[in-house]
């Protein structure tokens, strides 16, 4: 049976409301083509000139790396999310101190590492609770392998969380963010030699903890 939709529609009462799709403010600012063309130095200058929306673009460009950095330190989504917000707010408040001597990303990493180290020294990182982990799919290729993978990941997180602060930061930045020794030295305020030594000792400690 065919339905005459045009007739149905013409018989309906026109709603007295309109549907308006509102773009989130942060998203709207980030999609501003004039801002999108600016490089990092120009975005910082725009922020300091009072254009807060320029900072939305900085957040958009660095939010993923900051979140991943925070997650590596605290091991759970909720804390990583809160810490990421804290990192960006601190970056905004200290934006006038950014001199452009390093990239903006490196400067934000430095803030992120400091925020995370302060957090983990104040509170032992809570790893992801069991019920927050993805539910094991019984129809997966090999549920036992998935379970083993999850356990090994948990062991790695636990071992990293037991490292001293600088060693932990060095391992996270070197292994997971693939930064050079020089970049890590800049972020941690250490010498390149100290970073290499920290990395060496961190690997030795991890081998001991994971054997």
């Amino acid at each position, binding site marked *: 049976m065919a339905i005459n939709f045009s007739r149905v529609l013409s018989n309906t009462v026109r709603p007295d409301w309109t549907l308006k799709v509102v773009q*989130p*403010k*942060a*998203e709207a*600012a*980030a999609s501003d083509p004039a801002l999108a063309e600016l490089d990092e130095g120009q975005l910082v200058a725009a*922020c*300091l000139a*009072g254009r*807060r929306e320029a*900072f*939305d673009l900085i*957040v*958009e460009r660095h*939010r*993923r790396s900051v*979140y*991943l950095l925070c*997650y*590596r330190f605290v091991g759970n*989504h909720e804390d990583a*999310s809160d810490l*990421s*917000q804290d990192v*960006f*707010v601190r970056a*905004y*408040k*200290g*934006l*006038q101190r950014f001199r452009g001597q390093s990239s903006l990303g490196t400067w934000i990493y430095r803030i992120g590492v400091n925020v995370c180290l302060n957090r983990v020294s104040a509170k032992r990182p809570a790893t*992801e609770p069991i019920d927050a982990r*993805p539910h094991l799919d019984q129809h997966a290729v090999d549920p036992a392998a998935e379970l083993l*993978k999850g356990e*090994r*990941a948990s062991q*790695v*997180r636990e071992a*990293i969380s037991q490292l001293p602060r600088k060693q932990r930061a060095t*391992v996270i930045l070197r*292994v*997971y963010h693939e930064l050079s020794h020089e970049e890590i030295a800049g972020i941690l305020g250490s010498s390149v030699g100290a970073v290499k030594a920290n990395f060496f000792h961190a*690997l030795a400690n*991890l*081998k001991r903890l*994971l*054997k």
Partner: protein
Amino acid sequence: MKPLSDEDLIARLHAEEVPEPSPLFWEHLSQRVHDAVAAEPIPSRRWFTGLNAVWAGGAVAAIAVVLIGVSLSVRRQPVDTGSAGSAAMTQTVATDAGAGVSLPALDDDVSFAVMEELASEIDFEEAGAAGLMVSPGAAEDAVTGMSGEDQRALVELLQQEIKNSKSL
């Protein structure tokens, strides 16, 4: 048990992945930061961050020169021989000079050492380019621009300083 090699260990570390958050999370995070930042005052450069090294060095140099000048002029202040009370002071100075302890050595003066250290870090070429140094011929120009009375007073002052330096 066989110990882990560096490569095995790093491979094991790499195997530990961060669970990918919901695609909606990124916009949510941006919005949270946006709202938090909106509550903060707009950051602005402090006035002193606009000063570059040349101006900062020039300012330090100028202050150092003024302080050294004041310090030296206070040390070598000519004694007023017209008053009765100062006669005894003159005698004391002369006695001290004879004993070789009239003034503390500049090397032992902490304030002078501080000023010397500050001045040693200054690039005088840059300070001169910034207009903070006396240009050649400026002293002559200043003297020739004086009135006759001022010039006589200046000559008397210089003669007095020469006498004082000889007596030390």
